[in-house]
């Protein structure tokens, strides 16, 4: 757990740098709320020893915060944290037993409950503003507009790849706290691969699938954005690196992880381009979370000495 938290540090620092006060308030209140609810539910409802020290509630809090806009009121964050920890995790028996990623459940619950607040995205650089931050269009909402209107020239407003990697330009630099800087997230991925916290199978298969799928679409019709912009925009990196790789809710075998990753990538592209939301990552991961037990049941590791059936 703490290894993943370390891997989140670059993205956390960048978020402070870009969103300033708003980022600090949202992240802190999300972490504090998640830790509090985990402790309170374990102690007073489940009547068992609280296990805050394992770091999983802190991680859920960080990831939930990363998925929120930096101008979200604290009371909404608390509702999200209560849903994530209370319904998403403790209902199923706590750490290790939850079928869905708690942070994503919290985010999606807020998205359908508070659609207005959850889809207004502050533009980066307003360091001293919180609730009053000015909002702007995210790269993904531009892409959606292009598809809806059939006007490919909208895509010209998209920031270029360097700006998407860094996330610091005036126009495109809007989005959730954790997703705007792809580079910081990739640093986290490199750290986790180096420390062998996760294997490459899930993140790389998701990113590769999205790349190939959107590239084909882009070739067929230029109203679909180019694949580089697709993989660097929205929650894709955050989801592929930190959310889909959650141990508890992802498959056990490498083969299973590839099936899971490719499916998430394909679902993401489908939802982004043809669904009603501009962002598809969260839903794609939650849908595949539901398939994880099925994948674990049918996809087995290759046994030692297994005879290939002819």
């Amino acid at each position, binding site marked *: 757990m703490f290894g993943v938290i370390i891997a989140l540090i670059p993205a956390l620092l960048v978020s402070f740098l870009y969103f300033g006060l708003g980022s600090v308030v949202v992240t802190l209140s999300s972490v504090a709320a998640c830790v509090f609810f985990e402790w309170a539910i374990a102690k007073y409802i489940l009547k068992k020893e609280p296990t805050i020290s394992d770091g999983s509630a802190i991680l859920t809090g960080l990831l939930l915060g990363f998925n929120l806009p930096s101008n979200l009121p604290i009371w909404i964050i608390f509702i999200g944290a209560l849903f994530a920890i209370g319904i998403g995790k403790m209902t199923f028996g706590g750490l290790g037993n939850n079928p869905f990623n708690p942070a994503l459940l919290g985010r999606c619950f807020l998205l359908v409950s508070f659609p207005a607040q959850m889809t207004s995205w502050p533009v980066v650089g307003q360091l001293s503003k919180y609730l009053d931050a000015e909002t702007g269009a995210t790269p993904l909402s531009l892409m959606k507009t292009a598809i809806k209107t059939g006007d490919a020239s909208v895509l010209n407003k998209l920031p270029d790849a360097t700006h998407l990697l860094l996330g610091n330009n005036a126009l495109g630099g809007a989005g959730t706290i954790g997703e705007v800087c792809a580079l910081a997230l990739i640093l986290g991925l490199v750290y986790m691969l180096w420390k062998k916290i996760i294997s490459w199978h899930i993140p790389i298969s998701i990113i590769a699938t999205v790349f190939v799928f959107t590239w084909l679409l882009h070739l067929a019709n230029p109203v679909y954005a180019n694949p580089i912009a697709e993989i660097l925009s929205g929650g894709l990196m955050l989801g592929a690196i930190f959310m889909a790789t959650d141990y508890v809710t992802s498959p056990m075998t490498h083969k299973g992880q590839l099936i899971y990753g490719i499916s998430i990538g394909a679902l993401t592209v489908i939802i982004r381009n043809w669904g009603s939301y501009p962002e598809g990552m969260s839903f794609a991961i939650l849908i595949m979370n539901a398939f994880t037990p099925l994948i674990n049941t049918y996809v087995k590791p290759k046994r*030692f000495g297994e005879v290939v059936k002819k």
Partner: protein
Amino acid sequence: MKLHTFKIGGIHPEENKLTSDVVTKVASLPKQAIYPLSQHIGAPAKPVVQKGDKVKVGTLIAEAGGFVSAPIYSSVSGTVFKVDTIFDATGYRKPAIIINVEGDEWEDSIDRSDKLETLANHPELTSEAIINRVKDAGVTGMGGAGFPTFIKLTPPPTAKAECIIINGVECEPYITADYRLMMEHADEILVGLDLLMKAAKVDKGYIGIEENKPEAITLFKNKTADDSRITIVPLAQKYPQGGEKQLVDAVIKRQVPAPPAIPVNVGAIVQNVGSAYAVYQAVMKNKPLFERYTTVTGKKIKNPANFLVRMGTPMRDLIEACGGMPDGENKVLAGGPMMGKALTTIDVPICKGTNSVTVLTDNNARRKAVQPCIRCAKCVNVCPMGLEPYLLATLSAKQNWEKVEAEDITSCIECGSCQFTCPSHRPILDNIRLGKSTVMSMIKARNAAKK
């Protein structure tokens, strides 16, 4: 140097080989020697001595109790004190012969000279003669499992042996008994290999040694340089390479199918270096198996050492000879930290398969608090048999025996890699052992019912 290794899984535990350079000492004779009748896989041996009988070193005291069984010889001279039950390494009371030691008088038939006998000088030794001698001398696998050696040399008619693989891997942390034996008795081991090859009627022999023993690799390479039949195979360091199936995979790149298949089904017969040495002594020196190399070790042990020890010597004597039990809380294992069995008493004797006595102290001895499984899949990735340890452990704990059998629990080699790697410190192997032994007895009962 090209290094071979097995394909699936594996871990890299700390080596902790404290005694690699400690020259083997001869352990002093015990006051009383204890011989459990089950020192091997198969039926227990049947005692042929009674209370009050006089025995010499090398006297038969228990004969084989069935086809899969092995006789036991006295390692001391003296008087049979009683045939009773004692606590053995399993923690259960098991029948054993106890002998009070008087002097050190050997059977005259044993050749006690150091002269190296080679197969070239003994053309009279046929395959059958060697196998019979190995069988009569009570030689069993000396790496731990203790399967009678002669059975491995007579494969079922459906299988054909193509090579002998000598296991000099010793991948278990702490233990150095095999390494010391290789350094001190290389010539005898090579004659032993020669005998094994002749017995199994094969003309190819391999010796697998891990890269952390470069001196042994060089020594054996030099000694076999002009023998084209024998190949020394340096292996990359990875646990559990000393597992029979892993070793076959590493050395000849063939994977033994799931049980009941055994290595000879893919043409290989695997023998530990200790067994090769025992075969040499049994055939060439007419010396039955009653002595072995054993490491007594532990970070807090004052003088960890390797011993040439008579079987039946209580572990307590050896620990005393190394400076006694360390202060603090100790856990004593028969074997190493990965596969060793924790003992309930240190009066347990050294048996044919006891390659070490490992004493873990304080934090090394204590288990960490068990946390929930977070399905990180580390156990799946390290399992050298391609199993899903988390699943086997959970199903075993829930006593879902049919399901756990369908998930191939009988393929588990109990190497403990899963438990070692688990970040939640879950007792994965403990549960799997429970499930495996239950399933094995279910299969046995089912087969018996069919007959």
